[in-house]
């Protein structure tokens, strides 16, 4: 272990970042003040702010120092994946086809198969349509995991997962499997560290959300409250955020006419409404379905006309103090603890207010807080994090060739990507994931990864080839940073390993590997 200067690191880090917050961009030199070698403390901090610490990120942290490293995480630029992960993403249909083209193509395929007269032909055409939807969803999930594993923008990738969960949609509703890739990549990822209001707008107008929460069914005189309710309860104010049933109804009226048009043509409108019609790809605002009567939301009249009403309502919701508190608490719960300290949440909410909901600034308040920097690793990893962090640790920057086994593990533990049916998203707390059966499954996964036979380096396709790749867990990072944080019981278990495979298995199955 290296000298104890590192226990002081949190102090200079806080000072440096506090300065940055007060006086806008400082010259980069101010952040390069100290190296941050791999020690148990730095390792734990790194483990909490990445999808999982590994040798590669530990080296980066050491070279750049915590402040510079964190600054780059909060303002990521050019997050280029290593080859061949980059190539895998580049060759995907979802990377090469726009949302509109993809949706229209799939819609045509659906209509064509429905129109077939012969039952057998129809059935196989419908199966082909479903299989293509499944393939598109799998592309999204694959891209998500490759970025989680290898993107240099680790905080942005985790926030993308966080917002996917916060603004949950479910893959098996309608044709959502064709929309997921764009939802994640255009609505969530670009705004993941930006202004909450921009994120909220991108989500609200995305066809994936509009279909998932049935707002495409919401029209004047035939109100569907589903989206309006979740928008306030789950996306912004929180269930006790100070709105009433009347507000839900009013917001639902504001949202009438906001929907999806999967056809190539536009609807026939009364002449005087043409100026209010909006079509962006498959997103559509149809003023003929919109309730034009005056509305009141949270005590204030809704100003504007047509879609401008929606923007005004989103402004109100995004700037509401309840939203700052509700989302700050959820962020602290995700990143730090099942029961985050109220004082820290209050400071995050204050940053939210001061910066008009700049998510990167709110996270900066969190990451530099003494409550965060000095916290012991008590946060139980959810299944996705357990799998991603374990593979990151086991294979470092050696790019895996097949995420199939990872998707399978995540499914077995009940947290498939885009697989949450209810709009509330997966639970953020340990009780959702630490049941007896799920832990037993984790140990099986620990063995699969630890023994190197999981198929992560076996290509898909008719003639799969497998590259031998043995996980390297007993490496320099282990001896410098991990070993020192293990309990005597875990060390004793590792001493009983009969083989390197078994040693890996025990390390990945250890209580320390379940938490961050």
């Amino acid at each position: 272990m290296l000298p104890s200067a590192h226990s002081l690191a949190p102090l200079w880090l806080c000072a440096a970042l506090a300065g940055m917050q007060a006086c806008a961009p400082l010259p980069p030199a101010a952040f390069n003040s100290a190296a941050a070698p791999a020690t148990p403390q730095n390792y734990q901090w790194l483990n909490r702010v990445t999808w999982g610490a590994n040798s590669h990120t530990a080296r980066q942290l050491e070279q750049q120092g915590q402040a510079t490293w964190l600054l780059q995480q909060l303002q990521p630029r050019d997050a280029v994946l290593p080859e061949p992960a980059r190539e895998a993403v580049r060759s995907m249909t979802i990377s090469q086809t726009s949302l509109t083209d993809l949706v229209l193509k799939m819609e045509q395929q659906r209509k064509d198969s429905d129109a077939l007269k012969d039952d057998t032909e129809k059935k196989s055409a419908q199966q082909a349509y479903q299989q293509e939807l499944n393939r598109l969803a799998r592309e999204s999930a694959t891209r998500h995991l490759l970025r989680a594993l290898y993107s240099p923008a680790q905080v942005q990738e985790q926030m993308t997962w966080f917002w996917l969960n916060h603004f949950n949609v479910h893959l098996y509703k309608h044709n959502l499997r064709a929309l997921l890739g764009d939802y994640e990549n255009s609505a969530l990822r670009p705004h993941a560290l930006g202004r909450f209001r921009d994120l909220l707008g991108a989500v609200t107008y995305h066809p994936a959300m509009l279909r998932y929460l049935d707002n495409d069914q919401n029209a004047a005189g035939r109100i569907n409250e589903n989206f309006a309710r979740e928008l306030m309860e789950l996306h912004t104010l929180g269930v006790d955020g100070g709105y009433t049933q009347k507000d839900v109804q009013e917001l639902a009226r504001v949202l009438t006419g906001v929907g999806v048009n999967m056809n190539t043509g536009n609807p026939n409108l009364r002449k005087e409404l043409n100026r209010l019609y909006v079509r962006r790809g498959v997103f559509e605002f149809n003023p003929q379905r919109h309730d034009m009567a005056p509305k009141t939301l949270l005590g204030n009249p809704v100003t504007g006309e047509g879609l401008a009403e929606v923007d005004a309502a989103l402004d109100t919701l995004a700037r509401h103090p309840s939203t700052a508190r509700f989302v700050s608490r959820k962020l602290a719960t995700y990143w730090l603890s099942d029961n985050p300290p109220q004082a820290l949440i209050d400071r995050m909410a204050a940053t939210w207010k001061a910066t008009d909901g700049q998510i990167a600034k709110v996270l900066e308040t969190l990451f530099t807080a003494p409550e965060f920097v000095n916290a012991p690793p008590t946060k139980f990893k959810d299944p996705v994090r357990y799998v991603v962090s374990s593979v990151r640790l086991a294979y470092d920057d050696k790019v895996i060739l097949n995420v199939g086994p990872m998707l399978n593990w995540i499914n077995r533990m009940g947290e498939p990507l885009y697989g949450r049916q209810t709009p509330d998203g997966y639970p953020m707390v340990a009780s959702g994931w630490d049941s007896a059966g799920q832990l037993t499954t984790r140990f099986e996964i620990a063995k699969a990864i630890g023994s190197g036979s999981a198929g992560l380096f076996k290509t898909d396709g008719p003639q799969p080839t497998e590259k031998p790749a043995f996980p390297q867990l007993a490496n320099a990072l282990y001896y410098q940073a991990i070993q020192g944080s293990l309990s005597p019981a875990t060390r004793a278990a590792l001493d009983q390993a009969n083989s390197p495979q078994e040693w890996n298995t025990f390390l990945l199955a250890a209580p320390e590997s379940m938490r961050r």
Partner: protein
Amino acid sequence: MQRRHFLRQALHTTAAAAALGIPGVHLHAATAVASTGAPKFLFVFLRGGMDAASLLVPTSSSFYYEVRPEIAIAKPSADLASALPLSADWGLHPALRESLYPLYQQGELAFVPFSGTDDLSRSHFETQDSIELGQLHNGSIQYGSGFLNRLAAQLQGPKPAAPMAFTDQLPIAMQGGLRVPNTSLRNLSKPSVDTRQSSIIAAMYKGTGLEGTVQSGFAVRDQVMREMSAEMDAASRGAITAKGFELEARRIARLMREQYALGFVDVGGWDTHVAQGGATGYLASRLDELGQGLAAFSQEMGSAWRNTVVVVMSEFGRTFRQNGNRGTDHGHGSVMWVLGGAVRGKQVVGEQVQMTAATLFQNRDYAVLNEYRSVLGGIFQRQWGLSDSQLKTIFPGFKGARDWGLV
């Protein structure tokens, strides 16, 4: 030896926690004491909206035969493809002739038609969720609190009824304040973490908050494997074993008869928009497989069957008329199947109306005349003697149990 050690350990931990009344520490299923005569309840959820009118055929409705010219099940006759007679108004799908019809005749199977929820979305997910949540549909919904979890919580006490979900993911019905284990028995494979490795892993958790959980996890795993070893032996000798849901149902029965009092399992594949078939075809095959599974479950439960109730339901029924694709679309009212040694069967109970064009709900579906929570409430009351206030904790906001004398 190792396993026994785990079980004893788990029992200690749990007993101590229970004695101290520590909240948040809950019984793990492996520790439950098997007691003969204790009520058992299995909930079988058919996801996808099963066509109630094909299972429970309204044979006295001429309207049924009028609007389903290609997929209706014929009135009872000597023809093997015709409905099996249940009552003056109802017949049973012929695919269930060998499996469930004998149970009906023995008085161990009853049906509640016109049942379901007041959720009118006709969305699979929304309606499935609202059923599993078991809360007032238009009230303030508490996600992550299912009715079977709240039932299990009411049944904690000196002889707790151990719950178990036989699924990969903990279903919403079993989520909530009480810790419920879940293990899918559909595709079992031998655990790769062996006994020695298990004990070394368990030792790492000694003194941590997860010590008891890890120990009972291994105990449940070993118990599942022990129960399954006979099956595996048979398979390795080349014997033909059950397949699909029948195999799963037998496995569930083996665990429920010894250890678990409350079970959940789901069966998919009921979304029949196209070419669903009639006496034979797609839907008939699904019913056949389900029926064989349920019959196998009743056999495998042995003497515990006497105290068992199985309720089978789907999120909604389907349109009463066939559609342009010789299938049916999402409907509303459905049918609940209630079977078990404890059931007073051989009856079709609940509020009913004659099926005509005029009695169609929204000119489309079966109406819901028997809200599912009131029916389940009546069954729970009979099985465990739960009070009204306990039932209202399980089903917040419901109007009260309707006791149809099913148990």
